[in-house]
């Protein structure tokens, strides 16, 4: 297999005066699983769009199957057998699975009427290729993320694909779903289809790929066989920095718990949850996506008040029926979905930081103390090292990691006792992830009680001193993270 399937060399592209790709090369061999990794904004998505004909390159050469390609249009790319599965899958949510799968073929046949028998046949053939078991008459919007992805893969396979590009396919999947996705990818490989797998998750790269390429700031920094790669090199290539991940060891834990749950129950979500959290502790809560972990977080913050049971703060029972109660008792919550629950994206970084403490920024006469506001913003931008030239810029101008720091800053500004974080580093690049972990560890050492809800097990083990595993709404087990392996936790989760 000396001849490469796709060979892109010295590709350049710029938008205005931003050089999105300075000089990148990418070579994919027929039938291999190739992993393209890099931090947000490194040019991963840009190169995909060039290969699939969405953008036109400014320079460099691209060969596919030995043929030099001058200009690529999206149709050319599809005809050559290049299929892209984007993060949002590009499916029609209001149509059924069968309609989504058969639409292109039906349109291409240029018939004025639809043969439903034909639609079914096409769809059945398509899902059979990956043994995907689904109700073909179900509307796509009713499917889970993993199922939607399978529909998109089935559709991609219909047109004699030779190279399938998957843009961060595992972001919204649970561990179990990732495993079944990987099985399908391996099966495609057996059929001789090359896969370009975009990811910035280290363990996935090691698990699935034959070869890898890493971009940083629009340049290719490394490529080669995955066998020759290790953790340290991978993070170094990705970020250009070396990290020493510190295992969290609690210091100055308080004698008495700062926050306790007693038999907390929410019908249909979780039942009889008991735990206590001391100041200076980081408690991990993990479980599958539908285990009730998110509902538990929402109950503790008053967004879905529990039906029965008690919440105690410093030993006294408190009532939390809405987020304002929680904030009053110095409990903060960093939500799961930063973009739809955590940030006012189009508003200024500054306003995003001070919004939860805004009622404390008043002068005696009730006026908004603008001077104090600016001081607070300056203080938190500096404290959390938010990389911005001007905090009046909207939050959209920042990267995922810096946006997450805004959400953290918002809560820290409220001077909390307990901070609950749900998936604190989802979609955040390695560098920022490391920094956020360090911030959380430092805060715990300063006496904050921290709860991290996450299914990123390395994250939980590294940053928490205890972990609770939730399954079907109940606490299944509790471990000291020093004495537990990832496999033990996974066994309890499943």
């Amino acid at each position, binding site marked *: 297999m000396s001849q490469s399937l796709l060979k892109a060399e010295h590709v350049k*592209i*710029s*938008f*205005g005066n931003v050089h999105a790709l300075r000089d990148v090369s990418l070579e994919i061999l027929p039938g291999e699983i190739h992993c393209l990794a890099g931090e947000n904004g490194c040019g991963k998505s840009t190169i995909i769009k060039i290969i699939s004909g969405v*953008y*036109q390159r*400014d320079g460099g050469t691209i060969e596919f199957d030995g043929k030099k390609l001058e200009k690529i249009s999206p149709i050319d790319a599809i005809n050559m057998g290049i299929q892209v599965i984007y993060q949002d899958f590009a499916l029609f949510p209001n149509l059924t699975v069968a309609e989504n799968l058969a639409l292109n073929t039906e349109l291409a046949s240029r018939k004025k009427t639809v043969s439903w028998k034909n639609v079914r046949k096409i769809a059945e053939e398509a899902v059979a290729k990956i043994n995907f078991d689904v109700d073909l008459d179900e509307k796509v919007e009713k499917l889970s993320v993993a199922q939607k992805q399978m529909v998109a893969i089935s559709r991609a396979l219909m047109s004699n694909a030779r190279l399938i590009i998957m843009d961060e396919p595992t972001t919204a999947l649970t561990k179990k779903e990732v495993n079944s996705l990987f099985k399908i990818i391996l099966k495609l490989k057996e059929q001789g289809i090359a896969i370009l797998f975009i990811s910035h998750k280290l363990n996935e790269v090691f698990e699935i790929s034959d070869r890898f390429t890493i971009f940083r700031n629009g340049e290719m920094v490394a490529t080669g066989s995955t066998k020759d790669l290790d953790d340290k090199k991978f993070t170094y290539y990705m970020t250009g920095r070396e990290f020493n991940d510190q295992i969290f060891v609690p210091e100055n834990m308080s004698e008495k718990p700062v926050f306790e749950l007693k038999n907390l129950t929410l019908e249909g979500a979780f039942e009889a949850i008991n735990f206590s959290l001391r100041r200076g502790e980081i408690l991990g809560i993990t479980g599958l996506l539908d285990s009730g972990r998110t509902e538990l977080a929402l109950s503790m913050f008053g*967004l879905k008040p529990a039906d029965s049971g008690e919440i105690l703060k410093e030993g006294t029972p408190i009532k939390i029926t809405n*987020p*304002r109660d*929680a*904030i009053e008792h110095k409990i903060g*919550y960093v*939500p799961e979905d930063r973009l*739809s*629950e*955590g*940030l*006012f*994206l*189009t*508003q200024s970084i500054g*306003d*995003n930081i*001070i*919004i*939860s403490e*805004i*009622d404390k*920024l*008043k002068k005696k006469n*009730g*006026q*908004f103390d*603008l001077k104090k506001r600016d001081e607070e913003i300056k203080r938190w931008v500096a404290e959390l090292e938010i990389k911005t030239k001007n905090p009046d810029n909207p939050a959209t101008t920042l990267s995922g990691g810096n946006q997450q720091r805004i959400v953290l800053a*918002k809560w820290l500004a409220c001077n909390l006792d307990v901070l609950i974080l749900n998936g604190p580093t989802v979609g955040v690049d390695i560098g920022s992830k490391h920094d956020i972990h360090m911030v959380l560890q430092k805060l715990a050492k300063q006496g904050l009680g921290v709860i991290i809800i996450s299914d990123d097990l390395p994250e939980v083990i590294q940053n928490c001193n205890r972990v609770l595993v939730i399954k079907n709404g109940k606490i299944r087990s509790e471990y000291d993270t020093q004495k537990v392996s990832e496999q033990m936790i996974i066994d309890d989760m499943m």
Partner: protein
Amino acid sequence: MNKAKSIYRKNPEVSRLLIIMLLWLIFMMFTQAEKFFTGRNFLTMAGQFPEYGLMALGGMLCMITGGIDLAVVGTANMASILSVYTMIHFFGEDGTMPMAFSVVIFLIAVLTGVVVGSINAFLISKLGVPPILATLGVNEFLTGLCIVVTNGSAVSSFPKQYCDFFSGNFLGFIPRRLIVFIVVAIIIWLMLEKSTYGTKLRLYGTNAHVAKFSGINTTALLFRTYITSSICAALGGLMMLATYSSARADYGSNYTMQAILLIVLGGVSPNGGKGKISGVITAIVLLKMIESGINRFRSVSTYYVTLIWGAVLILALVIDYFSQKPKKTK
């Protein structure tokens, strides 16, 4: 040139309106200078716009939350009819009302605003009715109520002291209605720029869900907003009462759309989260100048006013499009 550009960028909503205003004034200078550029004409304009200007100021707040207040005219007429009946009740149809009683009239307007605004806010925040439907329903209900109470005819026999005073001028040349408008505008400016309310309002309008997650009391915020809007509308009703010297269920029925046009023209985003009072005030003044200017042409019917307002709104949006158009990308 660069300096002008940076000023424009800093406040595009106001700047583009000022450009249109300037062009219009130049046009008037060449065509109707002697009729348009008179002190009296400007005073007339200043006395007329507060009616719907007040409605636009309040409605602006609702639109910043991403909502809308379509009940402004119903509220205005309700307030003026209630005021008139109160005057008749205490002083008879042709009695004399002591000037101090105006305070009571204003209290009635504020009270009407509180009640109507609370109903709107209750429907929106507690029952989850979309603002456009909630306020439309309330507007129809109020208008209907006014028609039933007045039998659909104008009420014009009542003590006129209030009307005479507020349709008159302060120091002989400043319309008193303008003073009411300025006072309300200052209060709203203070709310938006000098209190935490403004920040909460804009953030709520950007994303109500995140606002809840951030611990903002969204119910209280909506009550405050819709009550303020209704109070402004009710005061607008009092200004209408002063102008027409009578009250009727269907006065100013085109003011609803006019107020919304002014708000959008003033740069408030219908999606919420964005808006400045300076933009809305500029829009109010601009449209009054255009309307008044058109009326100076004998050959142009006043029917053209609506047409030209529509054209101005579209023009403003077009200017906006070209000034915000991102640089060409590959």
